[in-house]
């Protein structure tokens, strides 16, 4: 079944100084399973990529001749290939999308719960960067069993970032 694309142009909102986030999230919430979102913005909305990745969306971004950006968000990574710019397979050739997850300031086992919930909706080619107060010792075996690899890096402030990606 071919995906239906819903278009949302927020260029005018941004030029008028209006915050388009709520409008975008409302549109995303109303998308049906087989529908994708084509977003038109005057710049590449990088922070939005991680937010929608948490909801299972992959994306293809391309610059228009006008200098604006067109980003296609879809729950089906395969369908993005059709829309990728010629000669490029976004999913294959682009660096992986990074989903940032802040699980600091939570009592155990909430950090593990949040991270495992996030990996269940992690887009195929995305990586998860989970920020925690402690090294998530119980997490590694769970991620391994779910087909992920992970390694943690200690930060200068004593917290940890765990990098999670599919094997």
């Amino acid at each position, binding site marked *: 079944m071919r995906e239906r694309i819903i278009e949302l142009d927020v260029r005018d909102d941004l030029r008028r100084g209006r915050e388009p986030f709520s409008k975008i999230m409302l549109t995303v919430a109303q998308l049906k399973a087989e529908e994708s979102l084509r977003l038109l913005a005057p710049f590449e909305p990088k922070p939005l990529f991680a937010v929608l990745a948490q*909801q299972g969306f992959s994306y*293809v971004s391309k610059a228009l001749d006008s200098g604006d950006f067109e980003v296609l968000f879809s729950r089906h990574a395969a369908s993005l290939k059709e829309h990728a710019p010629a000669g490029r397979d976004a999913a294959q050739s682009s660096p992986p999308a990074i989903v940032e997850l802040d699980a600091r300031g939570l009592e155990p086992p909430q950090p593990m*719960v949040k991270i495992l919930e996030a990996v269940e909706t992690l887009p195929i080619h995305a990586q998860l960067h989970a920020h925690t107060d402690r090294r998530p010792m119980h997490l590694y075996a*769970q991620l391994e069993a779910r087909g992920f690899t992970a390694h943690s890096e200690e930060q200068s402030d004593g917290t940890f970032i765990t990098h999670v990606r599919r094997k």
Partner: protein
Amino acid sequence: MSGVNSQPAATRQNAAAHAPATANAPSGMLPLRFILTGVLALAVGMVWVAARPDVLTTYHYNQYVIALTHLFVLGWLCTVVMGAMYQLVPVALETKLHSERMAKWQFVFQVVGFAGMVWMFWIWDMKQVGHFGSALAVGVGLFVYNLARTLLRVPRWNVVATAVASGLFWLSLTILAGLSIATAKCTYESAETLAATSVLGAMIHGLRSLAMFMARFDQLGAMHAHAHLGVVGFFIMVLVGVSYKLVPMFTLSEVQSKARAACSVALLNLGLAGAGATILLRSPWKPLFALVIIAGLAVYGWELTQILRARKRRPLDWALRYFLTALALLVPVSLMGAVLSWPTLPLNATTGQLENVYGFLGLIGVSSFAILGMLYKIIPFQVWFTTYSQHIGRSRVPALADMYSARWQAAGYWLFAAGLLVTSLATFFSHAAGVRLGGLLLTLSVGTFIVNVAKILHHLVRPRITPLSLKPRPGVPTDTSPAAMSGSSSPKAENAFAV
């Protein structure tokens, strides 16, 4: 142009900081078997106090008190602490348990050893105490070796590791001291007929020599030294060390001064080394080393207070209240210890009963109350992790706090506190009916704990797993993302586009 953002984090590259993606803690059932066995021993012990209040109303140097004490110390405290350490040490020190198989064998030696010892103390057959004690010692040897090998893998040594290593050392010394005391209470008639050149003969001659060596020491002094090495060296030392990890974890705080934490453990070690020797030798220097131990506990209390003041999670849950109340009891126990260490203090009915109160509060007030609090964190997590870890993010699973009743937990707290107060006063005044009442209150408290443990264990049999799918709102596709599950976008998400 097409592209995806990448956000390289400013990280301090540290080779030791990279952890492998492997299981670090042992399977959940291993600590649970130790812990449940310990809880059973605690329940039997409390019923015993209620049924036989004379164990506290008379001086403690008799076979029944020694049997009951070993039930509490080996059956309850040691078994539970060992099970919890198999779980906590690898996780807290970011390493892996050396051998789970060795831990399973240790469990067998532990149960056979302590059950046999308690029984043989009860009927006062010291030769059999020695045999069952040897079985227990084999288990303790496996435990110490297993954790020592685990500690050797610790990537970064810290105060928790020092406290655990110290605890293992003092535990080993306690077991050796206990076996030596038991050896001194046996007779070796067969040494006259067995040649020292045979294996059995050499062993019997060796034991007789050890018994003769131990005969140089005062029996009461040796028993008190043995008790202090075990309770202060193992239980208190491990409680102090592990709390430097667990209290910040559960209150969302940090250790405020690593130097202060290290100082507390160093003073405990120094004080105990001196106290062990001076108690054994009935030396007039006893009060000095008692004060060093008290100084270590005071520094520990200072650091713990600072940790709690800096906490981000203001409410203290009931588990922490159990734990912190137990630690507060270190104040009266320390005062009693200081008084009882005075070399010219006469041993009379009053000081004898004060010794009973001191021992009772040390074992049941401080150690047991604290461990019950920690078990309210450990058991739910073990069962939850064993039952639900594969379902997190894929199904709805219960929260830890939903696995047991907070009301039963609160009732257990007040019953235990009341039981401690009544039993301590009644013990001091040698009031048997009062000790019985206190024992009943403590038994009821343990009963509430067992009810909650049963509620928690029920999840192993009947897990409560429900599908994630929410009732679809009109026009909104089914969404299983964390944001959708929580019903709203996170504040971070709200700001994301505007960055």
